[in-house]
């Protein structure tokens, strides 16, 4: 172990900044690292020289970059489920990047985990119900068409039931997709608010 007053050299600064940002999208990280590398080069600071005082706190520099990244993802409304999920990931990572006490972090993480699981299970339930309706609807329809022995009204009754269930299933699926996107968006914003509060406390 070396002393606390070990110099923050440019080499060390860049290395630590990269470490802090490593879980964020590669493009964004590369852009930020390039900016700081160029800045320090232009400032005439060599790899073994100390960085300006303001940059000594890599945490602070990293948190400002992260704050902007989170802002970016939650202000763009997700256009697809996949994009929404990547927003959730960035927001979640930003919480873990915030410097706070470990017990509090674990507590917050557990709470968030519970909320996410709850939302995910509700969405899954919705999907299962829709799938159930769709499958039974198709089975009803097909079986009513295949039933030759049935009376005239019987066939129409089960055919009608089958079509109704199929319709309900399709409507259910159509309703679930915006709901899933909306949930991703909501969860991203929730994380953003939480990470903002944590930063204020820290």
């Amino acid at each position, binding site marked *: 172990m070396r002393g606390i007053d070990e110099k923050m050299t440019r080499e060390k600064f860049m290395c630590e900044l990269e470490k802090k940002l490593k879980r964020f999208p590669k493009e964004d990280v590369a852009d930020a690292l390039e900016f700081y590398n160029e800045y320090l080069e232009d400032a005439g600071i060599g790899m073994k020289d100390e960085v300006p005082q303001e940059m000594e706190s890599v945490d*602070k520099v990293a948190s400002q970059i992260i704050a*902007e990244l989170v802002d970016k993802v939650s202000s763009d409304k997700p256009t697809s489920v996949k994009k929404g999920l990547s927003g959730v990931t960035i927001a979640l990572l930003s919480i873990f990047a915030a410097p706070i006490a470990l017990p509090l972090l674990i507590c917050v993480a557990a709470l968030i985990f519970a909320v996410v699981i709850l939302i995910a299970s509700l969405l899954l339930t919705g999907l299962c119900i829709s799938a159930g309706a769709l499958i039974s609807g198709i089975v009803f329809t097909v079986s009513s068409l295949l039933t030759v022995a049935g009376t005239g009204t019987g066939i129409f009754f089960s055919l009608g039931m089958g079509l109704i269930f199929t319709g309900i299933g399709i409507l259910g699926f159509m309703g679930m997709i915006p709901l899933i996107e909306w949930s991703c968006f909501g969860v991203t914003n929730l994380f953003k608010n939480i990470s903002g509060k944590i930063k204020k406390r820290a």
Partner: protein
Amino acid sequence: MKKRKEGEAVVFNLGAPLLDACVLAVLSKEDLYGYVLTQNIQKVVDISESTLYPVLRRLQKEECLVTYDKPYMGRNRRYYQITEQGSKKLDEYKQEWSQYKKSIDSLLDEGD
């Protein structure tokens, strides 16, 4: 705790819109790269090195700025250039600022 640079106390806080306006104003004169841009802003307002990068990213996202690379001594320098939209935004900021300044002045001068 916020540190202040040697004696030159900054009494008023610089909010995000005003910082955006300052960056756009500096770039409306010429295209600049990160270091010189920071230096120019720091001549006037007390901001840390790490504040400017997120501002530049935001302005790029809002299509107020674009960047291009220019080779310099075997490496690239990223220059920031104001767009038409950025100029429009700057004009809006200028108008807002002069109105704001007038109303604050009128309040502050009331006692005289």
